[in-house]
């Protein structure tokens, strides 16, 4: 018989045990009767010899080895029965736990989906990203760099440990079928899908012969683009698509949710067919490279091969490849933006969960103390201490698990709203699901919290002094129990202090940041990228004319006050840090200062409302052929010239990267013609700590012909309006389409923002954190107050006879109230003291993780702590007042 059968045939086994013992007693008695004893005496002696049939049976049951399981099931039944008998306690405890585990589970679900899950490709651990690396300023500003296309082709051919594919981020205009639309274009090498291990949902990938210049123009659509542009059309393969005025044949559709670097993209074309001249240059590094380790190769072997090969390239092409190495790293999702926010929030909800646990623990403890006599009675009747501890723990585990189940239900309902509520784009949001990891996590935390809050009450199970407890009145509280109770309240208050101070700091920070001047007048400004028609992009003169025409058309739109073209917009993504120096001879590279370079048309200052401090801004004379001029901001004026007047001074820009010349050796000399106000380019929160804050502007009209094509792809237009800016968007689109090059129907506006929106978005993370921390802090405050109220109500209730006695001896109501309040004040102050230290550490962490965080000011601490103390005193006042109304006579009679 195995233990399973023994367990399930318990009834049979019980009756057999009974029968066996009875047989023994009868046989013994029969023998004694035969020896001449009376039947009663024989029965008695047989029983004595055996030593108590019930004890023997109990020992036999123990010997069976299934005892623990039976007890466990019994304990669970008992626990459920006890909970059902006290519905108020059960509801409060379950709600608290459901809330705690619910929010923790939601945060963990997000953390798991975004940070912990591997990438959604087959065998993601075999995928690597290959980056270029140089030890110059590029590494400082851009970190890992992409790879030059010729280098990529050489690697693909020569590196044996990796199967490699490359792709390029680009954009284009799809003009047919349907309305012209700007699309996110990915030029991809033919083996991209096979390297990633992804099979297309329809059609095929690119063929090697299509992946070179002159190949058949073919296109692969993203799943979403297919659904949007060819709704329901299952015969999309073979249809044609007009992209940048060229006809492509659709050969495939990517699978649903396929992403490259976290972005879905719209259409894919073969990388080899890309016509941009920079693709053939080893100097330009536009290609992102992914690779899959071949079987039996590990990362370090692949790295070794890449290192050797990069050295070989450097010898062969010293001009472009000297000092350039290739680095392979495991392919990971880029979630650096949200990582710290997510861990911070997970930390915060863990504090909420801990408070919830402490709360339930104090409730359970109060119950355990009032059950002390029951437990003592059971010890007296023969229950083992371990058995009682186990039973108490089972009860709290049942409570914890039920709370956990409710919490998971809460999380499953709350996860989508939470993700939707996230400010901006949450990377990998599509991978956030309640999966087995989350369920496992929820099970573990609910069991752990069950044990955590159940342990203290369980360990109170009486071991000795049973007699004293049974003799003592029901209403005595030992010092140990009071200390334990207080320590839960202290813990809750300390945790609440941490959350309140964090919320207070965030609130202050947000107030300070919102009142900062971004440096531009954000009211009524619309900024949007504009894509020129592919028809004009081939010819620099046409490009210049096309931009001029777009600006002229836009200026005539009703409601528009002024218009400018600009490449990088403050507060939005995209920037261009370049070195400069103040003497004709360049200082060593490590000592070169940097500034953000922005190209603009003359009306930019007016559109953005940036104040001109000295000199002049650009005009129509600043064009190709005239002296190169720049306008610097006050920060750069300070850095470069100190107290001297910068107007009329010269600055030198590195020839290789200067926007005034294309890739020559000698530095460009440029003249400073004006100084303007500083713009918080990096956002309200981040600008003060940004690495490069200095800014200068240069005229778009002075950008040389060879750069014009690339620059055009980056340009935006900025529009100041006299009416709400979004109202002008429709007419603006029409105007752009009506301008030169728009006739072909493939000139479009995309990425439309208002400057107010960008300014507000630059604080969205802080606002979001403040809101969540505010909610957490409020729940912590509420829970801590409930905890204080519960514990004091309980402790006071236990002291009714004592208080009654005091009042009978002449204590006034006021004295009784202060007696109770003193007790709570002691707990509150210890809690605040402990919490202060924790809050200081949390403040340090917040400052480290959140941009623009103000340091922890004493006034913030003072404010948040007085809120807490006030609320806590209010919560203790109710039990105190109740105590003061005790009728002394009734109280003394009670026991």
């Amino acid at each position, binding site marked *: 018989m195995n233990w399973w059968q023994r367990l399930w045939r318990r009834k049979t086994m019980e009756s*057999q045990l009974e*029968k*066996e*013992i009875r*047989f*023994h007693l*009868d*046989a*013994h008695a029969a023998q004694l009767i035969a020896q001449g004893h009376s039947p009663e005496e024989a029965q008695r002696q047989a029983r004595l*010899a*055996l*030593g*108590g049939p019930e*004890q*023997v049976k109990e*020992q*036999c049951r*123990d*010997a*069976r*080895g299934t005892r623990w399981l039976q007890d466990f099931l019994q304990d669970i039944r008992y626990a459920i029965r006890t909970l059902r008998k006290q519905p108020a306690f059960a509801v409060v405890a379950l709600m608290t736990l459901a809330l705690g585990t619910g929010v923790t589970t939601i945060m963990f679900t997000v953390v798991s989906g975004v940070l912990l899950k591997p990438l959604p490709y087959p065998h993601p651990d075999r995928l690597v990203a290959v980056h270029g690396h140089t030890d110059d300023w590029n590494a400082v500003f851009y970190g890992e760099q992409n790879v030059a296309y010729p280098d990529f082709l050489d690697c693909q051919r020569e590196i044996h440990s990796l199967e490699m594919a490359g792709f390029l981020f680009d954009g284009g205009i799809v003009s047919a079928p349907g309305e012209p639309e700007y699309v996110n274009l990915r030029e991809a090498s033919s083996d991209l899908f096979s390297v990633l291990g992804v099979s297309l949902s329809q059609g095929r990938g690119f063929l090697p012969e299509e992946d070179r210049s002159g190949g058949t123009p073919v296109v692969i659509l993203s799943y979403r683009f297919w659904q949007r542009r060819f709704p329901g059309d299952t015969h999309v393969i073979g249809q044609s698509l007009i992209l940048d005025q060229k006809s492509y044949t659709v050969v495939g559709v990517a699978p649903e949710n396929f992403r490259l670097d976290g972005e879905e993209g719209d259409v894919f074309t073969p990388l080899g067919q890309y016509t941009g001249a920079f693709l053939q240059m080893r100097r330009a590094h536009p290609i992102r490279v992914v690779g899959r380790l071949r079987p039996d190769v590990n990362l370090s072997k692949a790295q070794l091969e890449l290192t050797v090969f990069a050295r070989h390239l450097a010898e062969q092409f010293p001009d472009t490849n000297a000092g350039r190495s290739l680095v392979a790293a495991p392919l990971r999702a880029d979630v650096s933006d949200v990582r710290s926010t997510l861990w911070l929030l997970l930390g915060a909800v863990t504090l909420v969960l801990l408070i919830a646990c402490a709360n339930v623990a104090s409730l359970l403890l109060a119950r355990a103390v009032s059950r002390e006599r029951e437990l003592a009675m059971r010890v007296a009747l023969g229950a083992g201490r371990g058995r009682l501890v186990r039973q108490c723990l089972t009860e709290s585990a049942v409570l914890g698990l039920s709370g956990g189940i409710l919490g998971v239900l809460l999380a499953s309902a709350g996860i989508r709203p939470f993700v939707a509520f996230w400010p901006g784009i949450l990377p990998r949001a599509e991978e956030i699901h309640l999966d087995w990891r989350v369920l496992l996590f929820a099970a573990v935390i609910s069991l752990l919290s069950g044990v955590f809050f159940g342990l203290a009450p369980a360990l109170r199970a009486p071991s000795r002094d049973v007699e004293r407890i049974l003799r003592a009145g029901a209403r005595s509280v030992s010092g140990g129990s009071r200390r334990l109770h207080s320590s839960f309240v202290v813990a809750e208050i300390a945790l609440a202090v941490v959350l309140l101070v964090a919320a207070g700091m965030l609130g202050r920070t947000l107030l300070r940041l919102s009142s900062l001047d971004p440096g531009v007048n954000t009211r009524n400004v619309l900024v949007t990228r504009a894509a020129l028609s592919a028809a004009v992009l081939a010819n620099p003169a046409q490009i210049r004319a096309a931009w001029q025409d777009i600006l002229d058309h836009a200026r005539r739109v009703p409601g528009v006050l002024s218009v400018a073209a600009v490449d990088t917009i403050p507060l939005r993504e995209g920037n261009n840090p370049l070195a400069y120096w103040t003497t004709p001879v360049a200082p060593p590279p490590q000592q070169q200062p940097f500034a953000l370079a922005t190209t603009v048309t003359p009306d930019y200052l007016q559109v953005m409302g940036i104040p001109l401090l000295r000199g002049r801004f650009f005009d129509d004379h600043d064009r190709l052929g005239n002296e190169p001029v720049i306008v610097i901001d006050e920060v750069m004026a300070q850095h470069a010239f100190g107290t001297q007047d910068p107007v009329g001074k010269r600055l030198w820009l590195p020839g290789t990267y200067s926007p005034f010349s294309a890739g020559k050796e000698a530095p460009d000399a440029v003249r400073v013609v004006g100084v303007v106000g500083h713009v918080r380019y990096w956002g309200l929160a981040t600008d003060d700590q940004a690495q490069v804050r200095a800014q200068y502007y240069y005229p778009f009209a002075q950008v040389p012909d060879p750069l014009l094509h690339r620059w055009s792809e980056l340009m935006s237009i900025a529009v100041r309006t006299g009416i709400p800016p979004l109202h002008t968007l429709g007419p603006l689109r029409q105007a752009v389409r009506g301008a030169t090059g728009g006739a072909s129907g493939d000139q479009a506006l995309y990425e439309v923002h208002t400057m107010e929106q960008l300014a507000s978005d630059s604080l969205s993370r802080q606002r979001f954190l403040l809101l969540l921390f505010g909610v957490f802090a409020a729940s912590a405050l509420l829970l801590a107050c409930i905890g204080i109220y519960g514990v004091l109500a309980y402790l006071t209730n236990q002291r009714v006879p004592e208080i009654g006695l005091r009042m009978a001896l002449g204590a006034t109501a006021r004295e009784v109230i202060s007696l109770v309040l003193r007790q709570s004040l002691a707990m509150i102050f210890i809690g605040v003291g402990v919490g202060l230290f924790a809050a200081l550490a949390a403040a340090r962490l917040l400052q480290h993780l959140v941009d623009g965080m103000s340091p922890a000011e004493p006034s913030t601490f003072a404010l948040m702590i007085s809120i807490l103390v006030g609320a806590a005193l209010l919560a203790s006042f109710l039990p105190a007042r109740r105590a003061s109304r005790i009728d002394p006579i009734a109280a003394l009679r009670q026991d």
Partner: protein
Amino acid sequence: MPAKSELPQGTLDLLILKVVAIGPVHGYAIAQCLEQVSRGVVQVPQGSLYPALHRLENRGLLAADWKHTETGREAKFYQLTRKGRKQLETEAADWQRLIDAVGLILGMTEGGAQ
């Protein structure tokens, strides 16, 4: 009647196995047998007999069957399993070695150093 000694720890199982080795036997008979064979020198508490029987059955050293006694009542009869017989042999041998060793040491003390 001489004072009864306490049963040394762990020997109860061995004694039970030895008694049961005679043939299928019920609990009361085992108790009687132990008392008679040990001539009242060793105190076998009846109360610990049944838990020991159940433990041995649980470990697979004993098998149990319900049969009728001579008086026609149903009783639980225990007998050795193959595993139980093996256990009995090793434990008996262990016990014999222990006795020999203890006897040797005691004899040595009496005879003085040789």
